[in-house]
């Protein structure tokens, strides 16, 4: 590693002066019923992309069951008082549109994209789904039956099993601990449960509509007022949940997946939300660690040692809590070796200042990649959505690059010491127990589970 890293390139052309990065102006409005609207022009193609976000998801209704917000979203697209399921799908195709309905822990959403020439009928359909979903009994029954097969199937995916276990470990009694329902929970879903979630969450006071694309904002705003203006409904009361327990010391959770020919590693610790003032510095620290192709972890366990194809790290910002995690699917015989390097790189960032050149490179990476999204409607939509959903300052996008550039090696080291909590990382390994248990046990007290989540004797 050391000899290789010192190799340099010869004759690399310098970077030319940078062209200014300008974010298209956003038009903001709030309708009298409370619906927030954000519009931005982007004329790259004669289409537009949009999302109708509802600011609540699984967490809000987690006391009723798990996965109800997602099931509600799924059934929302299967019928309204005016249109059958089949009609909805054909109408979408007639408008050249794509549409998806989803829910996560903190939001539900209707996402859509279509040709600008059909913006009015598409928005009318979105409006119908948000206000007049009829939850047809037969459609609900079919989707519930499908979901039963899905929850059985997901337990065969190493990535799912690892993510599920880490969330359980980190969040305990907090709703964020539950990523997917059990078969029994799905079997017990009632149509009325969905209706109730729909009434609570899908209201204009709880919603915001964001559109990016080929349209004129003032005309679009009129269309939106005409379409969504008489929607009514109050915001559901927010719920606070007790903070999860801070875990002390490393522990290892082995999920036994018989017959695995590879081991999925996923280790994590609590971190911060998107709104936290340290978000940008943690983002830069993460990109140095394992968030970029050129990062230390990727160079070490992929490009130098060949243990894995796709190592990566990231910060997952849920609304109330965020967590840092690092993952790699590795050869069974190098589980201990991979974990050793994962911790070596964490500890190195915590103990030694980042060399100036490496820091400059990482800043360039983060600021450059931040603007790649400017070139597409989808890219703009995702930046604007994140900014609005997290109620970031108005100038967040415009000042982001300067804030990244101002960071020093001391800032990064302090950030690593605060959030890359090496000593208290919770380590999940998913694989064939017989091949990896001894290696895993070297890193902390071991608990063993089967793929159904049942604890096995260690």
């Amino acid at each position, binding site marked *: 590693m050391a000899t290789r890293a010192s190799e340099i390139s010869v004759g690399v052309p310098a970077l030319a002066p940078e062209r200014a990065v300008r974010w298209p102006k956003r038009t903001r409005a709030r309708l009298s019923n409370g619906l927030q609207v954000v519009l931005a022009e982007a004329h790259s193609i004669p289409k537009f992309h949009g999302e109708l976000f509802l600011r609540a998801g699984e967490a809000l209704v987690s006391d009723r069951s798990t996965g109800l917000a997602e099931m509600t979203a799924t059934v929302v697209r299967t019928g309204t008082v005016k249109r059958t399921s089949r009609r909805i799908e054909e109408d979408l195709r007639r408008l*050249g549109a794509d549409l998806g309905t989803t829910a996560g822990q903190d939001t539900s959403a209707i996402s859509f994209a279509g040709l600008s020439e059909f913006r009015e009928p598409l928005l009318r359909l979105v409006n119908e789904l948000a206000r007049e979903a009829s939850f047809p009994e037969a459609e609900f029954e079919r989707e519930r039956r499908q979901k039963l097969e899905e929850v059985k199937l997901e337990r065969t995916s190493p990535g799912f099993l690892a993510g599920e276990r880490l969330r359980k470990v980190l969040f305990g009694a907090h709703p964020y601990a539950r990523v997917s329902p059990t078969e029994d929970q799905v079997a017990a879903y009632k149509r009325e449960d969905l209706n109730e979630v729909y009434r609570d969450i899908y209201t204009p006071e709880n919603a915001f509509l964001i559109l990016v694309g080929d349209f004129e904002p003032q005309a679009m705003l009129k269309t939106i007022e005409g379409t969504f203006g008489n929607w009514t409904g109050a915001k559901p009361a927010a719920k606070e949940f007790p903070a999860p327990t801070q875990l002390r010391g490393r522990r290892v959770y082995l999920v036994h997946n018989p017959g695995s*020919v590879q081991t999925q590693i996923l280790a994590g610790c609590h971190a911060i939300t998107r709104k936290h003032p340290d978000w940008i510095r943690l983002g830069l620290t993460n990109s140095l660690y394992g968030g970029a192709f050129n990062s230390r972890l990727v160079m070490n366990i992929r*490009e130098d040692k060949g243990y894995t*194809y796709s190592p990566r790290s990231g910060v997952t910002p849920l609304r109330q809590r965020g967590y840092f995690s690092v993952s790699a699917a590795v050869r069974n015989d190098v589980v201990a070796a991979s974990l050793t390097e994962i911790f070596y790189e964490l500890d190195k960032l915590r103990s030694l200042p980042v060399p100036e050149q490496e820091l400059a490179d990482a800043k360039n990476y983060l600021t*450059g*990649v931040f603007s790649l999204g400017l070139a597409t409607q989808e890219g703009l939509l995702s930046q604007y959505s994140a900014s609005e959903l997290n109620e970031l300052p108005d100038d967040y996008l415009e000042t982001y690059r300067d804030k990244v550039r101002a960071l020093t090696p001391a800032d990064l080291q302090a950030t690593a010491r605060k959030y890359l909590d090496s000593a208290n990382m919770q380590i999940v390994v998913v694989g064939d127990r017989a091949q990896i248990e001894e290696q895993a046990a070297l890193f902390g007290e071991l608990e063993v589970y089967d793929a159904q989540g049942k604890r096995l004797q260690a």
Partner: protein
Amino acid sequence: MTQPQIPVQSTTLQNGLRVVIAPDATAPVVTVGVYYKIGFRLEPQGRSGFAHLFEHMMFQGSENAPKMQHIKLINSSGGVLNGSTMYDVTNYYEAVPSNALERVLWLEADRMRALKVDDENLRNQRDVVKEEVRVNVLNQPYGGFPWLDMPPVAFRNWANAHNFYGDFADLDAASLMDVQKFFRTYYVPNNAVLLILGDVNPQEGFASAEKYFAPIPAGAAPPFADPAEPPQKEERRGYVEEKFGTLPAMAIGYVVPQRLTKEWHAMGLLDQALHGGRAGRIYRELVLEKQIAVEADGGIDDLFGYNGPTQMTTRIMHKPEYSAEETLAAFDEVLREVREKGITEDELEQLKVKWRSDYYSTLEGGRGGYMPRYGLMHLLACFALFDNQPELVNTIQAGFSKATREEIQTAARKYLVPENRAIVFRTPVDKKEKEAA
């Protein structure tokens, strides 16, 4: 019907390298791609998986940019990069702030001119590729289904029928000499196209292309194995064990017409009538109406990106209480209906609108917004390498908007027949047996 108006300019350098530029200064971002006309279909026998392993080697160092420098130079310029191996092409691409254009061109030219790798790099990437195969295929439910399962069942010519990710024994047998030979044979400028899209002044772009790429000597015209298939006379079936998953699955593939023909345009729309999401006939019947299947999707994977025998493939996962034969019978019923009655006028109109809309998204997209114009790059490259007409990107749509109900029904009658298809059944192993073993 309006057509896209992408400003496409192209030229060919003395050494045979094609250069295509499509300027658009909306955002200060430029996408660069280099496509080589070699994919896994044409890799050498006894070296399955080699085209893909070789793609990895292209990131391992060149004369003036040693190992780790390729990735580092792009990332530290504020950009992202990747490569992928397909049936008939291999691509390398970067999206960067436009002030890094010269640097990217220098880097692509350096590795086209003088790849410089050693045994250690090869061992390293062989290990990485094996983990890639494990994470995507061997350790995943339905891994490789059906893209790796289908070719050996459907095809008889080794070029089309072998394991594209590579048997581990073949990967182990690959030597540095193989790497060098493959590089000298296929990675010559006269077998490639360079694409520069986005924030570029075309004149400057062509001048830079000339500056960095013109000194690379042309090579001999590469030999290509003939991918033609012997005529198929019967339905073909294959069976694969599913080690992890809980649901029985099947894939049904029909060989499609040759690219750019009238039949091919009709087939493109027929594909959308059958697949095309929740409105598609197959999903509607099998999942929504009869409720036999949990998933039913598929289609022609990359309509514009093939230059040899290709299938339209439907992938179905069905409920365990239905047998494979019952499921297949329901699928056959959908196809019989299209053969006998064709599609409706209203349906065709819907399909054409959706087609146009999807095409715009393809041009812009995307990969989630962080690889702008990936789709445009891919289309320009394939139209340049296979058809020698990058401008097709602006006119190809006309053929789809003109397709008629009669042409679509004729295509269905000719192509959606048993003697033109192959079926792979991927069936979960008995869990009790597995636990006892």
